[in-house]
């Protein structure tokens, strides 16, 4: 801000100061006075809105955790995680837990690698109209309802390729669903890496892949991890596409990628609840609790990973 009147642009002493208002440079402001009524109201309203919004997230979260734990804990038995489901509703959820974990790991590997690489491509190489075409394509894919993707997976993989209900069909469908999220968050995170890092690497003559791996991706890791986290949470929580592709079984998941259905936790939440036997209904609550705990563990683990790998970055 320049001094008013220095170059005659703003004539000094000609009525109220145009730049600083009545009374010149803050002359009338009382340092110890209370802020005006209007300012205090606006400030209060702003704070209130923020608190309300936080409450709208926090209260349902606590409610869900309380509701799930409150129904599952009283009849909790460790056999829930050690035994497989039986047709009478006895036994536990070992096969569903294992199935969900296998699906989760598969999504991390398949959608993780495809998503991160396409995010890198979108951020670093896809310029111009090709770039915007690819970006819109990815957004369209993200907008397709999961049950539609599930149906596509059913027609193309389960029926078309004769894979039947299987791990491979479920994995590919879930990956299709999650790749856009991973790609988007990777792209955004890569774009936020300071140009100075890239220029420093260029000036040192580092090969492109080294720069990518050691400098830009490293700096973008928190954003990439967030995308992966969302993807994993989706693969934990999705039901609709899995109904069409994974099927369901009481058996532990095996090694075969095709022709063998997979059990998973959300199926238990969804179907066991409607069974007439209390044993099944209890299992349904147990499955919900296990899902919530898995999500919490996942978040803690990802925070730890980010903290450990980010000890050399600017934000630390």
């Amino acid at each position: 801000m320049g001094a008013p009147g220095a170059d005659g642009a703003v004539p000094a002493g000609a009525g109220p100061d145009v730049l600083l208002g009545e009374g010149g440079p803050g002359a009338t402001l009382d340092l110890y006075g209370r802020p005006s009524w209007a300012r205090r109201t606006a400030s209060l309203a702003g704070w209130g809105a923020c608190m309300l919004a936080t409450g709208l997230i926090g209260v349902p979260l606590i409610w869900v955790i309380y509701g799930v734990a409150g129904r599952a804990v009283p009849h909790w038995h460790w056999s829930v995680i050690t035994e497989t489901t039986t047709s009478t509703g006895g036994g536990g959820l070992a096969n569903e837990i294992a199935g969900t974990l296998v699906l989760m790991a598969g999504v991390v590997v398949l959608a993780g690698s495809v998503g991160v690489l396409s995010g890198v491509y979108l951020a670093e190489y896809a310029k111009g109209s090709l770039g915007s075409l690819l970006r819109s394509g990815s957004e369209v894919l993200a907008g397709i309802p999961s049950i539609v993707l599930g149906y596509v997976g059913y027609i193309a993989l389960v029926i078309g390729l004769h894979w039947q209900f299987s791990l491979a069909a479920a994995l590919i469908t879930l990956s299709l669903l999650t790749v856009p999220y991973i790609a988007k968050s990777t792209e955004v995170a890569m774009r936020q890496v300071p140009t100075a890092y890239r220029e420093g690497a260029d000036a040192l003559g580092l090969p492109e892949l080294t720069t990518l791996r050691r400098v830009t991706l490293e700096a973008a890791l928190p954003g990439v991890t967030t995308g992966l986290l969302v993807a994993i949470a989706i693969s934990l929580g999705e039901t609709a596409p899995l109904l069409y592709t994974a099927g369901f079984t009481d058996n532990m998941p095996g090694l075969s990628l095709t022709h063998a259905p997979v059990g998973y936790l959300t199926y238990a939440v969804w179907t066991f609840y409607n069974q007439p036997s209390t044993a099944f209904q209890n299992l349904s609550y147990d499955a919900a609790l296990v899902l919530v705990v898995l999500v919490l563990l996942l978040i803690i683990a990802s925070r730890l990973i980010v903290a450990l790998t980010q000890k050399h970055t600017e934000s630390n």
Partner: protein
Amino acid sequence: MTSVRAPATAAPRRADVPAIVEAGIRGVSMQVQDLALGFGSATVLSGLDLEVRRGEITALIGPTGSGKTTFLRSLNRMNDKVAKHWHRGDVLLNGASIYAPGAQLMALRRRVGMVFQRPNPFPMSIAANILAGVKAHRIAGKEHYRDIVEARLREVGLWDAVSNRLNSSPFSLSGGQQQLLCLARALAIGPEVLLLDEPTSSLDPVTTENIEAMARSLVPALTVVIVTHNLGQARRISDRTVFFYQGKMVECAETAQLFEDPREPETARYVTGRMG
């Protein structure tokens, strides 16, 4: 220990050797031939002819927007990636065109290093920063890494301050120390020309003095080109000074002559502070 840069090839500067004779002995490191460059429809630099003499410090001065940083960045082709960049004319490094088709950017930048205005350490440990270029260019084997890190950090006077935290984040260092680290990183790949883009503009006076002393100690083993807004700095450390104004090279002369007896009126107005 790996040897710290040995100034064996070029003789130290001696006051009684006329500059022209010395320049003849050392020769020209980089030669700029009728260079013009710009971005899109804007022409930033035009009609540039300049010889950067080997083993000397050449200072580039001029008002903001005069094109000196853009010029510096054309010496290691850092402008290439800027959108809509174009150039005419040529730049030679030891007689070979750096813009010729087939010129290898990696090789060029290994020979022509750069330190930026703002310190920009990589998000990796202090030691890994020094070794980034060493590893990429396969300069030495793993067994030498420790020695290289120590030698390079000693070279820039940072060893005592960081020897016990080589695996810490470079962002725990002060701005001046980060800049010294970047200098060490650039020196670690053994460049023959070092480009400094206002390297001390964000630093305190003591660190500035260190870096100036360092730059002086690098010649004549290295050739240094430095962009600076600090006329005193150009005067203190450079052998030759080039004055840029509005995208043109107005004058290039021995530093003492350019400051005390400039040929062009614009130069005189700038170095005497009548034009900022």
